[in-house]
């Protein structure tokens, strides 16, 4: 069914179709409409789940973790300070390899009263063990939620997944969304019944506890790391199955656009990729060989895939929506730079920080970034990190 939906409502539909057993949420801007939409579905009898009206995000995370350990399919969503507040339970969730699914509607953290979008919040959990998917459109949000459950619950993975989409720019943006049929979703993502993974209802008196130390702990962590690596092939396989049923796919870990023969690649994530596509089309008409690489999965980091896409390019212009304090650049830039040494012919890289606290990443800004990158290629001296918000 085609509908015009905001990102939050698209996410809510994805969650409804995934048939979770337990949902626990605490409202926070810009996630609130998602919480309300799920409460609405529940009140209307469209979701057969336990809805836990929790007193805070720490409890939201702890509750879904408990229900997931017990054997259920679960969901929570948060943003910004809520994500920070649940951090202890969130790290525990990934630490114990509990396959929970969460949405983070991304937002700045150091601004107390401001509720500006940005990616700073989600970057704070990048090494926690959560798989991170970053959609570009409302449709991709819904589809990513469904894929997230497949990924999390896969016996080869068993790690939690967060679908992190841009606060306001996606959460409150209305787009055309194709809502899949329940029957098709059930084919793609079977409802949880007698979950084969270790749980509390298996009758086997299993113990879930972090009370391991030393070598067994190291072994557990080693296995977690391996599971994270397996995500890289698993996501392609899952997306293949998804495409076969629903006819949509997003390029696995890195989505590209006109990148094949490009000399300059704009590298970014999230909603501003749409704007970048428009700018790229224009630049191509002007004869500039430019393309797009959109990171769709930040964890695991698409090291091999990026290497494939970027090796031999002349220039990578990164557009970053978060800042990495202590590195004088954004996170995307910093992490991509770590991949350069894998490449035979590494490109030059420039960073463009923009879109903090809900400021627009406009087509003007991206054109400007492109112009700076092109000039630098021609030999103009350029700072490594640039802020597009001022000239």
């Amino acid at each position: 069914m085609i509908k015009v939906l905001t990102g939050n409502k698209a996410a809510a539909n994805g969650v409804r179709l995934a048939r979770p057993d337990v949902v626990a949420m605490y409202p926070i801007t810009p996630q609130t409409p998602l919480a309300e939409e799920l409460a609405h579905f529940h009140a209307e009898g469209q979701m057969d789940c336990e809805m836990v009206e929790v007193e805070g995000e720490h409890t939201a995370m702890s509750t879904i973790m408990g229900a997931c350990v017990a054997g259920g399919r679960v969901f929570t969503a948060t943003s910004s300070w809520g994500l920070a507040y649940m951090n202890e339970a969130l790290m525990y969730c990934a630490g114990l390899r509990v396959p929970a699914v969460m949405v983070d509607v991304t937002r700045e953290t150091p601004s107390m009263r401001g509720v500006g979008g940005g990616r700073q919040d989600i970057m704070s959990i990048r090494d926690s063990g959560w798989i991170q998917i970053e959609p570009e459109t409302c449709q991709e949000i819904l589809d990513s939620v469904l894929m997230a459950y497949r990924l999390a619950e896969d016996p080869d993975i068993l790690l939690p997944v967060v679908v992190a989409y841009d606060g306001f720019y996606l959460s409150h943006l209305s787009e055309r969304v194709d809502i899949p049929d329940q029957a098709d979703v059930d084919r793609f993502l079977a409802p949880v019944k007698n979950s084969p993974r270790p749980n509390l209802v298996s009758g086997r008196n299993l113990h879930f506890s972090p009370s391991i130390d030393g070598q067994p702990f190291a072994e557990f962590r080693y296995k977690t790391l391996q599971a994270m690596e397996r995500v890289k092939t698993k996501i392609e396989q899952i997306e293949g199955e998804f495409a076969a049923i629903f006819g949509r796919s997003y390029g696995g870990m890195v989505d590209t656009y006109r990148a094949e023969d490009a000399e300059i690649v704009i590298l970014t994530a999230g909603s501003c990729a749409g704007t970048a596509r428009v700018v790229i089309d224009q630049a191509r008409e002007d004869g500039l060989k430019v393309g797009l690489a959109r990171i769709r999965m930040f964890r695991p980091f698409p090291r091999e895939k990026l290497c494939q896409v970027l090796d031999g390019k002349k220039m990578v212009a990164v557009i970053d929506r978060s800042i990495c304090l202590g590195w004088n650049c954004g996170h995307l830039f910093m992490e991509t730079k770590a991949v350069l040494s894998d490449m035979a012919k590494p490109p030059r890289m420039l960073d463009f920080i923009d879109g903090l606290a809900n400021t627009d990443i406009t087509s003007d800004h991206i054109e400007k970034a492109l112009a700076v990158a092109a000039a630098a290629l021609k030999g103009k001296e350029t700072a490594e990190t640039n802020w597009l918000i001022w000239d």
Partner: protein
Amino acid sequence: MLNNTLVVRNTNCPPSCALCIEACGQRAGTVYGPVIEKIDLPEVDYHRILTCNQCSQADCLAVCPTGALSRSAAGTVVLDDSRCVGCSICNLVCPYGGIYHKNGEAKSQKCDHCGDEPKCSQACPNNILDYKKASVVTELMQEDALSPGLPYCAGCAMELLDRQTLRIVGKDIVLFGAPSCNVLSSKVKVPYYGTLMTNVASSATGVSRYFRKIKKDTICLAIIGDGATADLGFGQVSAAAERGERILYICYDNEAYMNTGIQRSSTTPFGSWTNTTQVGSRGRGRQGTPKNVPLLMAFHNIEYVATATLAYPEDYARKLLKAKEAVKRGMAYIHVLTPCPTGWKFETEHAVEVTKAAVETNYFPLWEAENGVIRFTHEVKNPAPIQEFTGLMKRFAHLSTEEIAQLQEYVDQSYAQIKRVVSCG
């Protein structure tokens, strides 16, 4: 099976008293005279009562060739006089002299609890003989889910608490534990979920909600210390209570963070030494009064709240049973004072004595709250002075007379506060 018991206190009777024996001799249907005896050894000042123990594994019963001995519904070993041929084999196997021939009669005789109303205990003015009816403790005991040998300090009351709780609540549970002395992971034969210090109640919420979704009645049982309950987990405990989550939450209160080496918690009493409320030229132990968590929980109007101790195991067992019922409808909370010999600084054999003193001084009154009504379950008529509690341990050893008086005042105030909300009658 019910197990009524005649508890014989291990204390001297007055040398000349024989009221129980007289009463026994006069009981209805007696043929051979009294079946309770007194051993008088005046030279060593020993005057004690001896009678049948009604052993749960009674050898007499097993060896009797005529089937004259049997177990009654109340758990008493009874002798059918008409079937006894007086072979006296049972006399030989009883290690306690509880069944015997007397005065050359041809048949054995033994105590039968006077058909469930022992005259001896009714006659005793000295509280030596106490007839306990239907002890829920033993009656309800199921298989012990804990493995033998646990890593508590010697004399810690927690092992008693864990074993009794698990044996009464049964094995259809998920057990929750937080980082503490009481981590039972890999030591207990039931599903176990180790949580963070902060999120026991929320983790249990998640599990119990999933159980509700799949229509499973397995009990979510949390046995958690005062730190994780009263301090950093309190918000979540309170929220779970407010939502009416189906959690059986037992707080074992040893009045400080013991596992990390004895640091103050919000239930540490006034004056108590801990490693973070030290005694020195300026420090006088913990100042101020502790948080009354069970009372706060009662004000959440959850299904069941009680205080309990292991010095009164039957009281605790009854409360556990009520909690086990209540948790089908919502949250049940029991606050158990659990003395820590290491942190309170007393010798290992005194945990029960210390606990008893806590109750008998009104330091830790026993009560329960059901359906909005709070009532005492063990009212202490003449409370002993607080020194009878504080004197048993070293954590209060530095207290001056004035400080003891202040602690007494706090105890009195706290008791009066509970008394005000306890319903009359």
